[in-house]
């Protein structure tokens, strides 16, 4: 197991390098001179040249990349042009909020997706199955900004059960959780819909396998066959899908944070984009990539836990 984990960790390194190159190139090919942008139209050429030198933009592209790489390796993701704060301290302030939202949405996805999918498979082509299938289709088709706003109108504005705008600053844990409900449902419904579909089809396949019949021939009660034999096998493809869509989930969190006006990496990155704060943009992109790589790593490890055939391979 340790060997398997180490191997997966090694595989992450080239991915990360590739992303660093991509992010670096992307920020370099954005038209316009950052120094000019920072100083504005009225700046003298001398001032621009001085700033260029200060930002290291007068060096060769290769050297610039090296600087960037060394910075990242030292945990230095650059400094905001707008606020002068380091990207790391900016991100660290809002990272908990984003992680909180992502994990809560993932839980929503699993808690709703797996049982619904399994139930649907066991009532194949009957009313519950049809209802679940239609429901998951709706879940897949609803964009976060539509579904989130709908939830806000009904449960926050009309019924007043949940806050419309997430409270910022220090609040009690209960208040924090209450503010998390609508955003995590908004973000989690897509995950739930995917998980439902994958669980259903994987469950249908597993229920037809020989070992299900073997378990039944042993006299194991049906619900126990489902839980202990069918579900434990059916969950393996679900883990794969969760891993694949974790990236999508993290990406979608940007939109959800905007809809609910929650502090988070998403709001930070959109703000940076609006203000042309390139170092922040660049740093956050690297950070997002790190998050996604980490998520995939956890998925791979989880896969090993659920599937003994991988563990020993």
């Amino acid at each position: 197991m340790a060997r398997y984990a180490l191997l997966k960790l090694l595989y992450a390194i080239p991915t990360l390098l590739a992303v660093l190159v991509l992010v670096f190139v992307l920020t370099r090919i954005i038209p316009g001179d950052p120094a000019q942008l920072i100083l504005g139209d009225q700046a003298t050429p001398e001032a621009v040249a001085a700033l260029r030198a200060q930002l290291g933009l007068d060096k060769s592209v290769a050297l610039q990349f090296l600087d960037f790489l060394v910075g990242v390796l030292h945990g230095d993701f650059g400094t905001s042009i707008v606020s002068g704060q380091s990207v790391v301290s900016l991100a660290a302030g809002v990272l908990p909020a984003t992680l909180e939202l992502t994990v809560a949405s993932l839980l929503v996805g699993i808690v709703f997706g797996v049982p619904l999918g399994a139930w649907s498979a066991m009532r194949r082509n009957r009313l519950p199955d049809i209802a679940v299938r239609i429901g998951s289709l709706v879940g897949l088709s609803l964009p976060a900004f539509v579904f989130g706003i709908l939830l806000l109108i009904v449960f926050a504005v009309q019924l007043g059960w949940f806050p419309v705008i997430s409270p910022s600053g220090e609040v009690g844990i209960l208040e924090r959780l209450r503010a998390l409900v609508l955003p995590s449902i908004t973000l989690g419904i897509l995950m739930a819909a995917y998980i439902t579909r994958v669980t259903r089809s994987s469950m249908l396949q597993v229920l037809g396998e020989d070992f299900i019949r073997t378990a039944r021939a042993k006299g194991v009660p049906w619900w126990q066959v489902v839980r202990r034999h069918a579900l434990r096998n059916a969950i393996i493809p679900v883990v794969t899908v969760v891993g694949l869509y974790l990236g999508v989930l993290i990406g979608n969190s940007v939109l959800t944070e905007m809809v609910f006006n929650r502090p988070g990496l998403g709001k930070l990155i959109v703000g940076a984009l609006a203000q042309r704060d390139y170092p922040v943009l660049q740093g956050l992109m690297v950070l997002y990539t790190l998050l996604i790589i980490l998520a995939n790593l956890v998925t791979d490890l989880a896969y090993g836990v659920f599937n003994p055939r991988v563990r020993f391979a």
Partner: protein
Amino acid sequence: MTDAPVLAVRGLSTQFRIGGAWRAATRNVAFDLFENQTLALVGESGCGKSITCQAILGLLPHGVARVEGSIRYRGRELVGLAEPEMEGIRGSEIAMIFQEPMTALNPVMPVGEQIAEAILVHRKCARAEAKAEAIAFMDRVRIPAAAQRYRDYPHQFSGGMRQRIVIAMAMACKPKVLLADEPTTALDVTIQAQILAELRDLCANFRMSMVFITHSLGVVAAIADAVAVMYAGEIVEMAPVEELFAAPKHPYTQALFRAIPRVDENAEGLQPIPGQVPPITAFGEGCRFAPRCPARMPRCTGPTPRLAGAPGSGHAVACYLHHSETLDAEAAR
């Protein structure tokens, strides 16, 4: 073996819903299984052997399949028995082993736990006790280093070893009846002989009865006390094993024997049976073997011949060629 049968099957008909209509996959199957006896069910693929066994255990899917007739286990009627009671019988009284050892085990559960599960389902006992017993059974079916391999997964075992585990699992509750559905077909010949010896041993030691499904007459000779030959969902001939091998009566049984290759004869002596088993949707009245039968008579397509034999002989056949004998015997009584 003169006592009441452990398992008595009468008029067993298994129907499947195919395209909206109910079609009988087996018709009027009847046999007795006595204590410590091995009955072989023989026949071509698709003749209803496996379905008969799954019907006995109530494993056929509800809604798609229905079972009529009577299956009595030690006097207790199993047809129509409620699911929870059937679960009490499965594994503990009547167990089953399957053809494909590669897929019959749960791939994500350690093999030892799968054996222990069979014990825990039927008996209130500590997990450790079930584990010890599971290891003892793994040992019993000659799995090397059983205790160390308790936590190993199915993919870490060879086909023969997996089949031993499946057998250990079926034996875990010391059932009275074992239904073995072609347990050696997927294995190579040397392993096949080992598994057969293992099963013979277990039957003798636990005074267990066995229904052994196979399409190989060689395997029948090695393991069975009695044989029931099935064709297209019906038993066409039933006899003690020596008698069937000495004097097969039904033209289908005779044809099966002619289709066995022998080393002391030319391959030209090998006679395949022309034609195929009719599909389930084409089962009609009359003898179902008639279209392929070399000794077909006009009456064969009339009413279905019933399985009958001279009283006391234990040799019964469902064929009009032999019905005069049977009728004479009945008249003489």
